[in-house]
Structure formats: structure tokens, C-alpha cells
């Protein structure tokens, strides 16, 4: 069989190639082309899974600077990459259906997929940085081309927050290698040459800023609601934006192994911030009257859980955080698309339109099931994630776990209230007749839901994939 070492590289760059090919494909075949590329990418991910991880591929990229091209997909990164490939495929499906003349949007989705897969595969800090920023450009272009009236403000806010964090991270990256004396930026080398003492804390803070923006973590979250609100009504850029919340993963893969002492030292503060983020954003979500903003805050609340799990440095909690990070993409993304479908039918994103369930039963039913997944009802993948996070965090800090635990109640409150005022209640007089799900829309909402249920009932495959990776990362902490 083909050497699995090279599979991640093909998987990363295939979508980029596809996004370029789309422009030379005749208009009528563009949908099929993009769908085919996205499906093959997902297939490559499954092949890597089947091969049991890809193994590390390391090439000298810029020898004079010690920058390597090191990629590997295994464990947590493989799980996230597969979810990314899956949701990109779903996004392509919906873009082909929803957007007239979708060539540009399809190209941007695929270009962004390259950046995202690269983020998960990179095992070199500079390479990680490069992919981290590469995903930014397509995301900005989606907002610029397809966004709403006030998109420039949202765009500048989003870009400024991201770059503020990532440039500080760049300084940290330079510092990590120079002060630690590592020959290259490859993670394996950096782990052998850790920076010690107070310098480690400072470098961690630089790294943390970038990851906190991308988690997002309060108080660096302000870009998120505007970003989602101003993006295209269909919710496709929001799916990609949700996948781009890689802060938890970055902290897990790079920050814990490279800054073990600083992670322990700052643990109480960061866990506090994470628990506060979860609760605060659930509270804010309760007051939202726009579905996109509500979804933004709901996603932020999930990210608070992810952060709580990662910062707690407890094995159960970290596994739970990674599980939640991977699978919330499914239902958060699908919910954005369901909001897009509602908007397509009634022309509004308001949460108080009322009565959709009477004529669009399947749309309402699937949306409700996805909301149940989102608020972590047992039987869905989100439950395993949130429960493990709380279980692990409780062992570290019972009170913070309690605060975060309240969030699950708040989540039920905001989600079900908004669902009720949109889908139940009386249809206002003269409201348009709402068409139910047709054609691929069934797949677009059904497939993510099916996967979320599958991994909620039978979590062993995903847990077996993640557990060894989490153990090896946490072993850097030394017997914790």
C-alpha cells in the first residue's frame, strides 16, 4: 500500500488544488467538481484512520532558518481533520444548492479547508503559523464577497483580533526556539529544548493570546458575534468559521508540551476565565433575538467548556475537551445551515417568527434534534464531551466545575426558548407558506446529526483514537 506518511500532505493540498481547478472548470460542472474534491479529501482522512495514523513526515523547508515541513495526522489531530473534511463536504453540498453561481464560494471553502487541515497536521511551529494565517484569507474573502451591509467593520475586527494574537504568537515562536536553543522549529526538537523559568511564562502568554482569540475566550471574543452576524445568510461561512476555532487544539498540541510549568502555574486563572466564558456567553445568548448572534454565543459557550477541559490539564477533562471540540463542529455547523435554510424560506433570521413547525415538520424536527445535541443531551456526542470535561475539571477545581455546570441549564434555556418562538407558537396571519426539506437538504442536516448520534452512543472508536495522544501530551507535565 501507499506510504501513509505522504497522505496528510495530499489531503492538505488537494482542496487547494481543487479550488484553483474550479476556476477552469465549466460553470455547470463546478458543483460536482467541488463535491468530488471534498469527498476525496474526506476519503483520504478515512484512509489515514484505517492505516492507524500517518506517522511523521519531516522535510527541511528552509534549512538556514531551521524551519521544517513536518506534518502528521494521528490521534486528536486526525479526528479534527476528519471532522473538518466532513463539514467542508457538507458546506460544499449546501453551497452548491443555495448559492447562485457558486464557483467563488466553493473555491473559498476548499481553500480554507487546506488551511484548516494544515493547522491540524502541522508539527512545526512556523508551519503551524503559516497555515493558521492561510485559513484567514479565504475566511475574510467570504465575508467581503458575501457579507452583509456592515461587513467591513466585522471584517476589520475579526482580522485585527486574529492578527493581534498571532503576531504575538510569532514573537513567542521566535523566542521559544532561540531561548531554548533548539536547532529547528519542529515540535519534536522543541520538546527536547524547553525554555525554563519566568521566560516560559512570558512566551506562554504570547502563545496564549493567539489561542485565546481563536478559542475564543473572554475577553478576546468580541469579534465572534459580529463575524457570524455579518456573514452570508446561508450559514456556510459560519460552518467554516466554526471549524476555524482551533484555539483549544493549538493549546493542547503546542502549549501544554512546550510550556508545562507555565500551564500549571496559570491553571487556576485560566480555568476561571474559561468557566466564566461558558456561563457569561450562555447568559448573553439568552438575550439574543438574531439566530446568528445566538448561535455565535452558543458556540462561544461550548468553547468555554473546551477551554475549561484543556486548561485543567486533567486527562479525563482534556479528552472530553478534544471530543467536544471535534464533535461540536458537526452540530454547531449543521445548526448554522439549518438557520440558513430557515432564512431562505422566510427571509428573516429573527428568533420570533413563530409557527414554522406547522408546515416544515422535518426541518423543525431535525433542527430540534441538533439543538438537543448542542445542549448535550445524553445519547449525542456533545454529552460525552461536556460530561468528561466536568468530571475532570471537578477533580481539579470543584467550584469552577460547578459554575460551568450551571451553563448546561442555561444552554437548555436559551436554545429551547428560541426554538419555541421560531418553530412553535402560532404562525402569524399572512405568513408565507414554509417549504419543508427537499433533496440534499435532508443529507445536509441528517448526516451531521447521524454522526453526532453515532459517536454519542458508541464513542469507543473516537476515544481510542484520542486517548493515547492525550496521554502522551500530558506526560510532559511529569506525573500529573
Amino acid at each position, binding site marked *: 500500500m501507499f506510504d501513509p506518511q505522504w497522505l496528510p500532505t495530499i489531503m492538505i493540498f488537494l482542496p487547494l488544488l481543487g479550488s484553483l481547478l474550479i476556476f477552469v472548470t465549466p460553470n455547470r460542472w463546478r458543483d460536482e467538481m467541488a463535491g468530488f474534491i471534498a469527498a476525496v479529501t474526506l476519503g483520504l482522512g478515512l484512509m489515514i484512520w484505517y492505516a492507524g495514523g500517518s506517522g511523521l513526515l519531516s522535510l527541511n523547508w528552509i534549512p538556514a532558518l531551521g524551519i521544517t515541513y513536518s506534518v502528521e495526522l494521528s490521534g486528536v489531530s486526525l479526528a479534527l481533520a476528519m471532522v473538518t473534511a466532513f463539514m467542508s463536504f457538507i458546506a460544499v453540498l449546501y453551497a452548491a444548492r443555495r448559492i447562485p453561481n457558486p464557483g467563488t464560494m466553493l473555491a473559498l471553502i476548499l481553500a480554507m479547508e487546506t488551511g484548516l487541515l494544515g493547522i491540524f497536521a502541522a508539527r512545526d511551529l512556523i508551519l503551524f503559523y503559516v497555515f493558521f494565517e492561510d485559513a484567514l484569507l479565504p475566511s475574510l474573502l467570504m465575508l467581503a464577497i458575501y457579507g452583509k451591509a456592515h461587513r*467591513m467593520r466585522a471584517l476589520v475586527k475579526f482580522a485585527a483580533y486574529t492578527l493581534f494574537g498571532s503576531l504575538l504568537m*510569532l514573537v513567542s515562536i521566535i523566542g521559544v526556539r532561540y531561548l531554548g536553543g533548539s536547532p529547528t522549529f519542529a515540535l519534536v526538537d522543541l520538546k527536547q529544548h524547553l525554555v525554563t523559568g519566568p521566560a516560559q511564562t512570558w512566551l506562554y502568554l504570547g502563545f496564549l493570546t493567539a489561542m485565546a482569540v481563536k478559542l475564543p475566550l473572554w475577553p478576546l471574543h468580541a469579534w465572534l458575534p459580529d463575524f457570524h452576524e455579518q456573514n452570508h445568510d446561508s450559514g456556510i461561512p459560519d460552518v467554516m468559521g466554526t471549524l476555524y476555532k482551533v484555539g483549544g487544539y493549538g493549546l493542547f498540541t503546542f502549549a501544554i508540551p512546550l510550556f508545562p510549568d507555565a500551564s500549571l502555574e496559570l491553571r487556576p486563572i485560566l480555568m476561571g476565565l474559561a468557566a466564566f466564558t461558558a456561563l457569561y456567553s450562555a447568559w448573553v445568548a439568552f438575550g439574543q433575538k438574531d439566530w446568528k448572534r445566538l448561535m455565535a454565543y452558543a458556540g462561544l459557550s461550548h468553547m468555554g467548556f473546551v477551554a475549561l477541559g484543556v486548561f485543567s490539564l486533567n486527562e479525563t477533562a482534556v479528552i472530553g475537551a478534544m471530543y467536544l471540540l471535534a464533535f461540536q463542529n458537526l452540530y454547531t455547523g449543521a445548526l448554522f445551515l439549518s438557520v440558513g435554510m430557515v432564512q431562505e424560506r422566510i427571509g428573516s433570521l429573527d428568533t420570533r417568527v413563530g409557527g414554522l413547525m406547522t408546515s416544515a415538520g422535518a426541518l423543525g424536527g431535525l433542527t430540534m434534534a441538533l439543538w438537543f445535541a448542542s445542549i448535550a443531551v445524553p445519547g449525542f456526542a456533545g454529552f460525552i464531551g461536556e460530561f468528561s470535561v466536568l468530571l475532570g475539571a471537578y477533580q481539579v477545581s470543584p467550584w469552577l466545575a460547578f459554575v460551568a455546570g450551571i451553563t448546561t441549564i442555561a444552554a437548555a434555556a436559551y436554545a429551547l426558548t428560541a426554538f419555541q418562538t421560531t418553530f412553535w407558537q402560532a404562525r402569524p396571519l399572512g405568513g408565507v407558506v414554509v417549504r419543508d426539506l427537499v433533496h440534499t437538504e435532508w443529507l445536509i442536516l441528517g448526516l451531521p446529526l447521524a454522526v453526532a448520534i453515532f459517536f454519542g452512543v458508541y464513542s469507543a472508536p473516537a476515544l481510542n483514537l484520542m486517548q493515547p495522544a492525550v496521554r502522551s501530551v500530558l506526560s510532559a507535565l511529569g506525573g500529573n
Partner: protein
Amino acid sequence: MPQLVAPDVALLPLLPILLVLTGALISTLLGFWVGRRVLTVINIVTVVLSGASMMLVWNRNLTSFAGGLQADNAAILLGLTILVGTLMTLLVSLDTAWRERVSFPEFDAMMMYAVTGCLLIVFSGDLIVMLIGLEIMSLAGYVLATFQGSRRAEESGLKYFLLGAVGSAILIYGIAFVYGATGSLNYAAIAAKVGSVSNLTPDNVGILVGGSLLLLAGFGFKIALVPFHQWTPDVYSGTSTTTFLFLSTVVKVAAFAGMLRVFGGALTDAPGWASVLQVLTAATLIIGNTAALLQTNFKRMMAYSAVAHTGFLAMCLLGTPELGGAALGYYLLVYTLMTGAALAVLAALQRTEAGFEISDMRGLYYRHPAYAIALSVCLASLAGLPPFAGFFGKYLAFQAAFQNGYVWISVLAAVTSVAALIYYLRPAMLMFMPDRTPAREYLHGQRSPTTFTVGLGVAGITVLGILPNVWYSWVANPAIWQFLAGR
């Protein structure tokens, strides 16, 4: 009976400069009989030949005039960068000079004289040769800035001349001080003297510090270092866009090359200047980026962006000669390519010499897709976004400053880069926003020489961004830069 010694004149190391000078002389003389476009083509040929002759002297460390002129590898690498900028300017001028009303032979002649001066700075082995080169470059530059014959251009030229002359005067004063302190004008000899400061009596150290600070101020005028940058936005935005392209790439590269020779070579070990330079760099980063953020005119924004980039480039000078020199060598080429291509698009699409307002750029992608994509690639690269080469330039500059102990400068540069990102991104994203109002740019601007220039720039920054080694492996050899410092 004193023996008459023949001066040491080797022509081979002079060849690149002489070729460019030939182009200048041909433009001056033939200008009476042939049209400017023919001259431009001739000049393009001489520039390419000059580049080829640089390959000929690569790795041979030839000198001429007893060390007054040095064709070492540093000179060749920076000289090639200058020629790339010149080539881009010449190509763009083929299309736009007639619209800018500067299409006469003197324009080409002046530009080639300026390039001669630039190369002289790059190849200089002592302070006098550097000064002569700088004066040739500056005088030709003042004329170029005024050439257009509009009130704005006249204002721009006069401002450039008055402030440039002050800068030159300060520089000459600095040279005198350094000579007084060390007794030599030759870089290597100065470096040898300064390297063992014990040779200098305490009085002389004071003079040396004074001299190096005066030199710093003089160069500060030429590279637009805050607070000596006041002329830059007015001159760059007032002059014709082709001249703007030339002044902000070629002339700036030459001035940086001079600084590298003086501060990265002769005065590396001299006390005092580095701590002043770090303050000036910090001020440049803050003021350049903040001011660019407030601009509404694209041309003027690019002028301020040139100031801001001076800050990033100057960070390289704060590094050790090995790291800083390599970083500067890489960044200057990338800077030339991205600024050149961006201004080429501006020159092609603007209706008047005032450039266009940033708000006029809305929807450009739907009217000129290729140029809009190229311009946004250049802007993304200027902003330092990977996978474009500007990212590695910035990274190298950060690294050079960080590893020489200027951690706070690199943090400050990171924070100010956020402002840079915003002002580059706003026009870049505006171009992709659909627009229903009539076009406000020149509709017939897409011509093949400009397209070639833009393509060259975009291909350059993309290739150098994905495979930085293509150029970095040439400039990375530490021996090149240690040689400057006489080690």
C-alpha cells in the same frame, strides 16, 4: 625621486555600474534623435546586462581604487535588488509615462543616473565613494520628483530637495567626524579602529559617537526614519506614480545598503548608535503605521506604508551583522517586488496623478479581476500574511531584532503590524465587495508591460513565500555579512 604609482583601477568590478552609466549617457545623447520608448528599451537591455555582469563577479570579492570600490557578494545581492526595482520602473514607465506627462528622454536619463548613484553606494568601499553615489542618486531624484511640471510635483520636488540637502549636509558632517575620530574613510580601516576601541582616546570616542549619530540622522532622511520622514508622504504622493515607485523601492534599497555598509560594517562595534536607532525604529513603527491608518487616499496610504516599512526594515539593522544582513537582503528584494507591483497597478488604473481614493476601489475585482487579485496579493504580502513572501520578511526582521536582545522592539512591531494589517486589508477587501456605481478608475490601464511587471512581482512574492530558500539561501551565508564588518 618619488616613484609615480599608477592608481589601482580594475574595470571588471566597475562593469555593472559602467553599464548602467552607459544607458544614462545614451539616453542623454540619443535623446535628441530617438523617441523615449526606444531609449527605455535600450535602458532595459543595459540593466539586464548589468545584472548579468554582476553574476560574473559573484564570489570573487574584487576591489578597485585601492578598496574604494568593492564588488563583494553583499554588493551584488543588494545591487541585483536595485536592478529588479529599476527594471520594474522602466517597464511601468513604458505604459504610464505619457499619461503622467513625463514621457521625454530626460526622464530616462535622470533615472539611469540615479541608478548609477545607487549602485555606487552599494559597491562603495569607503565613505567618500558612498557620499558621491548618494549625491548622484539624490540630485537625480530631486529632478525626477519635479519632472511632471504640475504644482504638486514642483512642491514635492522642492520639498525633497530642501530636506534632502539638509540630510546630505548632516551626513557629510558625520563623515568628517568619523574621519576625525578614526583617521580613515575606508570601511575596513574604520572597522579595524573601532573594533579595538582602546585605540581611541576618550575624546575620540565622543567624536566617534557624534559622527555616527550624525550619519544616522543623515541616512534617516534618506530612508524616511521618524522624525526625519516629514517629506516622505508629500513627495511620494505629490510626484508621478512611476517616480513614486522608483523612489520608494530603488532609492530606499540603496539608502539601506549604504546604512548596512556603514552601520553593519564600518561602525558595527561603535558605541551609541544602536540605542538611538532602536528608539527611532520604535517611533517609525508607531507613527508610520498609525498615520497610514488614517489615510483615505490610496497613493498617500502607500506613501505612509513606505514609512512604516522603513521601521520594519530598520529592525534588521538592529540585529547582528550575520542575521540582520541576511534578513535585510531578503526583505529588501521582497519589499521591492511587492511595492513595485502594487504601485504598478496603481499607476495603470489611476485616472489622475492624485491616485484614487480607497473608497473608489470598491468592486475593482469585478472590473479588473487580474489586477485586483494581484493588488490584493501584494497588499496581503505587505501586511505580512503567509503564504506570501512579506511574511518571511517580517519574520526575519522580528527574529533579527529579538535574537540581538531587542525583544521589546519585536513585541512593539507585532502590535503595530495589526494596524498595518488593517490599512492594507481595507482596500484589499473593498475590491472584492460588489458595487453598482460607475467605475472610477482608468479603464484602459491594462497593458502588457505593466501586466508583465505585476506578474513578475506577484510570481516573485508567491514563489519566495512558499520557497523562501530560492533567495534566502543566497543571502543567508553569514560570511557575506561578517565580511562587511571586517571579521
